[in-house]
């Protein structure tokens, strides 16, 4: 590789590896997400111009951080006449105390965490929190975020800008919230991280490796949360949940990319290391004696994971855990999950009865409902209703491999 090619490759690698960390760091210190992003973009551009000529610096991230800061300082000087320059200059004074050269990885980790909590600010629309996390903490661009959320790219861009403007305009605090504020914000933080994980999870076929990186990044954030909020059982629960799901990645599709449901997955393909780590965090969480949604969801996955050791699934346990989950967070997903577990534990009819209690309007276009209904109708021999439900489920699938799987099930009735 020539020096130039190597320099470009390093810039590209740096963009992938540290964009999120750097934006978070700069935004927290500068109290302006949009300005931090602009400055960082300039810094990357400067790197593309400078590195091929002068060689890649020893610490590329620190170089980029210094360059971005210089841009911010220049910008602030130009804006000095404006009133808004005052807080910026105050921030600048603070900056002086910690020059870029002495910047440490641990410190950056801390900033990302602050940025996470900032994205969960109660004054922000809940719907924009995860996109904001994806962009400012994980460095995902607006078009990809729009794709993950099936929203017009222009709309997503506008929403993100509005949210950033709000963070800038309101006297919102960029500091870590007081401990008393944690419970209020933590849930939103955890939900945002889990949704970030989910947007990586859907593409588990591996067609797009960058999406897989996203799931890995979300797990990284989960680890960060556990490290900085020791003894917070829900943070540990979330980490355990993500690790349990991640452990099964290799088993979710066959070599041809076909969808394989959990009950038919080859357990030898599950990652024992990740299961072990998940179990570790879940048992630590249990010590706090405070049950929550993520711990329950992780516990459900934990029972599934035990199949790799015992060869069996304790459906009664899963049904009980879902019972608790439905009480805490009565989402459609939890209700359908409970019906599935109950059907396995007590028979298909029990599951069908529960499904029948769900509001018709809400489940009309909810794919998992129809997939489960199809399976259960098939088991009790109501074949016509099973076919109908399989068809609905297939028609509501966005994933072609899932659609094909459902079609095959339907044809096999």
């Amino acid at each position, binding site marked *: 590789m020539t020096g130039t090619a190597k320099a470009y490759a390093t810039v590209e690698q740096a963009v992938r590896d540290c964009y999120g960390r750097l934006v978070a760091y700069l935004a927290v210190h500068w109290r302006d997400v949009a300005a931090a992003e602009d400055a960082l973009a300039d810094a990357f551009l400067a790197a593309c111009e400078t590195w091929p000529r002068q060689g890649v610096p020893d610490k590329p991230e620190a170089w980029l951080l210094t360059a971005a800061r210089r841009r911010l300082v220049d910008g602030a000087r130009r804006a000095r006449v404006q009133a808004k320059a005052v807080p910026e200059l105050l921030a600048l004074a603070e900056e002086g105390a910690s020059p870029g050269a002495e910047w440490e990885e641990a410190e950056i980790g801390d900033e990302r965490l602050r940025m996470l909590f900032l994205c969960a600010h109660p004054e922000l629309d809940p719907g924009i929190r995860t996109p904001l996390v994806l962009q400012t903490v994980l460095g995902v661009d607006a078009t990809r975020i729009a794709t993950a959320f*099936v*929203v*017009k790219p222009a709309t997503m861009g506008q929403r993100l800008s509005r949210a950033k403007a709000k963070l800038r305009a309101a006297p919102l605090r960029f500091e870590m919230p007081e401990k008393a504020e944690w419970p209020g914000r933590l849930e939103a933080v955890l939900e945002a991280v889990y949704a970030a994980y989910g947007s990586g999870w859907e593409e588990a076929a591996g067609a797009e490796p960058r999406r897989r990186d996203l799931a890995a990044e979300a797990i990284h954030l989960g680890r960060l949360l556990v490290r900085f909020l020791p003894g917070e059982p829900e943070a540990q629960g979330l980490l355990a949940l993500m690790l349990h799901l991640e452990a099964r990645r290799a088993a979710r599709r066959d070599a041809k990319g076909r969808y394989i449901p959990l009950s038919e997955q080859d357990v030898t393909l599950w990652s024992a290391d990740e299961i072990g780590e998940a179990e570790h965090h879940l048992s630590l969480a249990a010590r706090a004696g405070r049950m929550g949604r993520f711990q329950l969801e992780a516990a459900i996955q934990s029972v599934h994971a035990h199949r790799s050791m015992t060869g069996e699934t304790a459906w009664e346990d899963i049904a009980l855990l879902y019972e608790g989950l439905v009480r805490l967070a009565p989402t459609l997903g939890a209700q359908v999950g409970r019906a599935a577990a109950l059907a396995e534990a007590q028979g298909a009819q029990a599951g069908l009865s529960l499904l029948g209690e769900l509001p018709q309007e809400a489940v009309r276009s909810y794919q998992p409902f129809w997939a489960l209904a199809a399976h259960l109708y098939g088991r009790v021999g109501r074949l016509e209703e099973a076919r109908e439900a399989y*068809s609905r489920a*297939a*028609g509501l699938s*966005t994933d072609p491999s899932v*659609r094909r799987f459902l079609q095959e099930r339907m044809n096999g009735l």
Partner: protein
Amino acid sequence: MHYTVLFYESQEEFAQRQDPEKKEEYLAGWTHYVKALRESGVVVSSSGLYPPEAATSLRRRDGKMVVQDGPITETKEQLGGFFVIDVPDMEAALEWAARCPNNAVEVRPNLPPVR
């Protein structure tokens, strides 16, 4: 609010409609999708279209309508059918579009009817 969901198909996809081996799978994907749309109660109207070879286009040149075989524009993908759906917003329309079994789909808001 009405939205039109336009499905575009490549030549290969159009060919599948006639291919005895692939026809069934092609049709099955659409059957399920159409059923899901209809059962959810969002469909206003819809139609599949014959392939672009069946198209005849008219274009006015020098004040005279010139008739020619084929579609107006020659592109890699051609309109294969459409749904007009009644959903609350663009996001709901996009959600439905994402479920379609083919690979290219366009969503546009309908203008309010001319009175």
